[in-house]
């Protein structure tokens, strides 16, 4: 992906691309084994000591567990420069981490969507900010 350096996430601490691969920022509890996303969204197993929560990056690829196609624009504060409606929303499963995460589906033929297909994490350009940076969100795309 070109010009990664000039991109900035609309809200920090959700998606990382510093390694060159786009990956979601999760946290894992060493005590109960639960993964969280966003990483501050703690959902410990009852009785867990809650000790040893560490930041982890999720794998880049997962499987489509469910999806929908949204036919009307998402209201503000959501915004994109380009019209994206209708857009796909996927629920992508990271099997080893036992977690499913929602995300906009981009750069994929929406008619080709099928539960079980392989998806990878990517970035979606939203708009350019005052500092001329490209503001982005995380998204999923079908593995080609």
């Amino acid at each position, binding site marked *: 992906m070109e010009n990664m350096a000039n991109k900035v996430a609309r809200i920090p*601490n959700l998606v990382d691309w510093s390694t060159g691969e786009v990956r979601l920022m999760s946290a894992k509890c060493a005590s109960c084994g639960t993964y969280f996303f*966003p990483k*501050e*969204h703690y959902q410990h197993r009852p009785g867990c000591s809650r000790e040893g929560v560490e930041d982890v990056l999720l794998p880049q690829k997962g499987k489509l567990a469910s999806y929908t196609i949204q036919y009307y624009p998402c209201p503000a504060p959501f915004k994109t420069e380009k019209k994206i409606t209708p857009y796909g*929303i996927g629920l992508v499963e990271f099997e080893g981490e036992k977690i*499913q995460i*929602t995300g906009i589906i981009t750069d994929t033929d929406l008619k080709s969507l099928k539960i079980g297909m392989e998806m990878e994490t990517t970035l979606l350009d939203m708009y350019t900010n005052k500092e001329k940076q490209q503001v982005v*969100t995380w998204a999923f795309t079908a593995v080609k």
Partner: protein
Amino acid sequence: MKSFYDAIVNLKGMMTMRDVYIIGTGIHPWMGFSEQVFADFAAVAVDNALKDASIEWKKIEAIMAGIFIYGGNAGHLSGQYLESIFGETGIPVVNVYNACATGSASIRMAYNSIAAGETETTLAFGADVSPKGFLTAKSDNAVQDRDVIRWKMGGLPNPIYWALECRKRMEKYGTTEEDLALVKVLMSEYGSKNPHARFKKTYSIEEVLKSVYVCDPLRLYEICPVSTGGAAVILTADEELIAKADNPVKINATTMGSAIYGDPTIRISALSCPSVPEAPMLSESYSASRQAYEKSGIGPEDIDVLELPDNSSWHYLVYLETCGFCGEGEADKMLRDGETKIGAKLAVNPSGGFSSHGEALSAQALWQVIECANQLRGRCGERQVEGAKVAMAQTYGLMGNSGTTIMTI
């Protein structure tokens, strides 16, 4: 007002919870956006409840108020605003918010206050004015409130969450688009017979299937909008008031549930869910309903009328399973076979449901209880479930909120 001595004597009542009855209910009919303020709607509902119960305002010993979250300071202190309209008497006024299960919280607090002997006669109410346009984020702090993330970055209006679950259901159990449309057909037929309903037009399967997708597989007529409305319920253990009431309705249980770790449902406002289930879907509603069955000794097989939260056609199906009216994946067959119609053993949403009303957050759970009470009191005219003796109102609120109320006559 009760004296301190009376309060001590009443401690005895706390050891043996006493029976609590609904003696008055009131509704302000559901509608779209209004320039009127929420307190106007609340006042109409409360006035109607007082008239129905044939009691004067001064008989009310506590107010359990549902918070109107879009109403600023007034909405957050809705009970105080309501009390000042009818006249302030110094009684306890508690304001509560549990998303769309707010009304469940208010009636449960009213019930517990009376059952424990703290009060004799208590009011629960809620009123909401639909915000113009869409519901959206209410803060700007993404670390504190992940709702901000779903709106700013996720592109996730509420119906998307239902569509994601609905798609999973279709894949797993073979639910069809016709099944989803059939829910609306049934709800519109009942809604057309309900004077309190906002939407009174009836639809055929073909008409529903022609309506546009909002988020595939859910269509415009298969999801409910936000509405304006008010509802009030007066509960009592006062024997004199019960004796003079028109068909008082006994509350056998009124409970609330929260979610259970490992619930695989993708909850509204969340960005993730577990992929390996360790708890039932919609576990907050599983919890609330099972508590109610246990407390009341009444089970799904005993229930004549069920008001469930049909925020979408998917909800209608899944709630029959969550609450134990059939096994997992069996609701579609129940629907197709006509086992949820008025006239069948179980009548589901004879009111026309949220599909015919829309959601009025703090009022809707009470409105469901009122429909149940009206059915038990034989007041439902063309949509009356003949001989209804046992009814259940089931709510669903986002982020793990739910309530169940079981009533008998």
